[in-house]
């Protein structure tokens, strides 16, 4: 057993850290906590910078546009990326983070060649069309119809909670191609150009007053049948594989560590009754308790990385990373806003306020939703209970 990184890994870490220090634009730095607040022009520019460096999807092999990083290097990379305060890139999250790996495994050669290069360069932005108004936690109940007519599927229905749809070019979809059997079995996986006639996009305003997601309506939308991924009726299985792939990355621990570090630094600078807030015995105790939990989660990632090294992929038990991570992140953001004192009640866009206040209040609001998206805490706990602990389902 060893706690330290190897000297190669340490060297890589230093290289990444230094590069981000030197190359992250000031207006991209320290934007992590606020969540979805990075302005879109800035995001595309930052995408391009990373693409040119070859780090837009560093976990991919070099021949596919990545940097061929090992699991540990990838972890180090993500950790240091967060550590510079840059927010997750929504321009790559669903495209390179989810769809590309799926296409590489289950897509046709044509699909791979047609779509992946533009994902890398940032030319094509993708969004994900899974949830529907009546299919949230119960995703398999989805209703959106796709009927094959000649060379085209004809789509009718609605998707919702589609992140970035109003800035995206393409969407990948779970659609119902068969309603006769078990509900999981009639689902297929399609790719659609958002410029296709019949698609209407309506942004949904979140509690942050931004619109990070949209409703997408489909009215007799014709999608060429070569845009089917996998076989007809394989959609549920593909979605499962895609989510499987995401498990380890479902919770960005680097952002958590960045957040708790932010709280610590802030409380060193804030004055309370003549002393730094961090010296207030109750505050420092809360901070210490959170740091213990954050460290334990970080060590858990180390432990899972060790398992990955010897080839055991994390199964459903990795669900707990997302449950615990999101709930812990929420507690960190609670303390972050607590550190602000009266300023914690303020909303954004006021010259008087510095960025850290803006990040704290937006970030706090955002943190309340992390336990909802990507499989709510309730769903994940049920997965742990039934799939990991094997408690009876009925």
């Amino acid at each position: 057993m060893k706690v330290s990184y190897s000297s190669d890994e340490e060297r890589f870490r230093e290289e990444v850290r230094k590069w981000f220090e030197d190359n992250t634009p000031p207006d991209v730095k320290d934007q992590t906590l606020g969540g979805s607040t990075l302005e879109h022009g800035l995001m595309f520019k930052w995408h391009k910078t990373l693409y040119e460096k070859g780090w837009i999807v560093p976990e991919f092999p070099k021949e596919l546009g990545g940097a061929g990083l090992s699991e540990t290097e990838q972890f180090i990379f993500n950790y240091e990326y967060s550590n510079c305060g840059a927010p997750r890139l929504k321009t790559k999250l669903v495209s390179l983070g989810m769809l590309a790996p799926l296409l590489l495994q289950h897509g046709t050669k044509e699909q791979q060649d047609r779509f992946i290069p533009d994902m890398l360069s940032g030319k094509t932005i993708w969004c994900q069309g899974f949830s529907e108004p009546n299919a949230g936690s119960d995703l398999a109940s989805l209703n959106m119809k796709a009927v094959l007519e000649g060379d085209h599927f004809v789509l009718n229905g609605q998707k919702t909670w589609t992140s970035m749809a109003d800035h995206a070019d393409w969407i990948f979809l779970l659609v119902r191609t068969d309603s006769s059997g078990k509900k999981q079995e009639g689902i297929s996986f399609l790719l659609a150009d958002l410029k296709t006639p019949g698609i209407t996009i309506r942004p949904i305003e979140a509690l942050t007053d931004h619109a990070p997601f949209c409703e997408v309506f489909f009215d007799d939308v014709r999608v060429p049948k070569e845009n089917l991924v996998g076989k007809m009726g394989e959609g549920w299985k593909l979605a499962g594989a895609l989510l499987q792939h995401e498990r380890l990355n479902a919770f960005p621990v680097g952002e958590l560590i960045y957040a708790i570090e932010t709280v610590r630094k802030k409380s060193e600078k804030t004055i309370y009754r003549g002393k730094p807030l961090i010296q207030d015995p109750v505050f420092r105790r809360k901070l210490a308790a959170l740091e213990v939990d954050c460290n334990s989660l970080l060590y858990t990632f180390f432990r899972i990385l060790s398992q990955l090294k010897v080839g055991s992929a994390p199964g459903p038990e990795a669900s707990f990373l997302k449950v615990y991570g999101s709930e812990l992140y929420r507690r960190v953001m609670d303390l972050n806003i607590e550190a602000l004192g009266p300023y914690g009640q303020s909303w954004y866009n006021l010259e008087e306020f510095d960025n850290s206040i803006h990040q704290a209040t937006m970030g706090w609001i955002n943190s309340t939703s992390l336990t909802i998206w990507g499989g709510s805490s309730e769903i994940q706990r049920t997965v742990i209970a039934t799939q990991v602990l094997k408690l009876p389902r009925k």
Partner: protein
Amino acid sequence: MDFQLSSEHLSLKESVASFVKKDHSFDRLRDLRNDPLGYSKEVWKKMAELGWMGLIYPEEYGGLELDFAFVMVLLEEFGRGLLPEPWISNVLLGGNLVLMGGSESQKHEVLPGVVSGDLMITAAYLENDGRYDINFCATSAEQRGDAYFISGKKIFVLDGLSADRFVVTTRTSESVADKDGITLFMVSPQEEGVELTPLKTMDGRNACILELKDVSAPGSNVIGEVGRGYPLLSEAIDQATAGLCAEMVGGMQASIDLTVAYLSERTQFGKPIGTFQTPQHKAADMFIQKELALSSVYYAIASIDEKTDERALAVSIAKAKCSSAYMEITKAAIQLFGGIGFTNEGDIGFFLKRAKVSEILFGDTNYHLDRYTRLSGY
């Protein structure tokens, strides 16, 4: 010991409830987010016409001279609908300071206007580096001849953007965190040297930063005695805090009602999500938290009404309890609503934001637990 409401209390409750239903809506809240004031002067005027500004004020100034339980009833209903009008800051804070400490001429100058809704008055007492400590006061008032000259900066002045008068804490003696040596001044925003910076709070209301640069105020603008402003301020803030707690309980109740309705109607996996055990038990916890918070509010309100020696303690208990309860309830509500709970299209999110602002207003849980500790002598 008696925590019963009289039929008069209940009849006010009914009037307020029907007013909130008729003259207010969540869509009004949505619109008001883009308004710098965050409330409607028209609605404010209507409330004044109903006599609500004068609820606890003496008849002499146009008030109804009712007991403090009416404040609870009124604010609980405001809280249910998240009515954004600045009742607490005007009636319990600004006007109340004049009522409790002002000279007869000050009272006659100010209170009738508060009662009629024509004069807006709030208090300015928080400063940078003082966090929630109301005795932290670096703003100076220097006597030169007959007048005082005030310099300093107040932050988060509640509803300060529409105020015609500020009651400002100043230091006339002792040092920055002492309770003695604080003097209250009435200052109008038109005075030379007064500068307002508008702020917006998370729940869409207004506040401001108030900067005073050598602002002149005659001795007749002192409220109460020179150097003896702290007890007045403390009493007014306690009453405002108790009022806020009542408002918070109303918000808790509304959050629970909205959540229960949603759980009963939204189906997943073929049945209403309210049939699942985890949502049921979470909803039960929301109810439990609300019941306890409500009791703490009754006790605080009755303590103020009866002017017991324990009223400050009772207020800190209520604020600590309500802050955590409101926060827990609204967080759980968002979680139970799922995605729609996180949008401005749903109503429940407004309660989450109000819960956060309410938690911070008049001191967060840390502040009140700390104050509780000191007041109970350990």
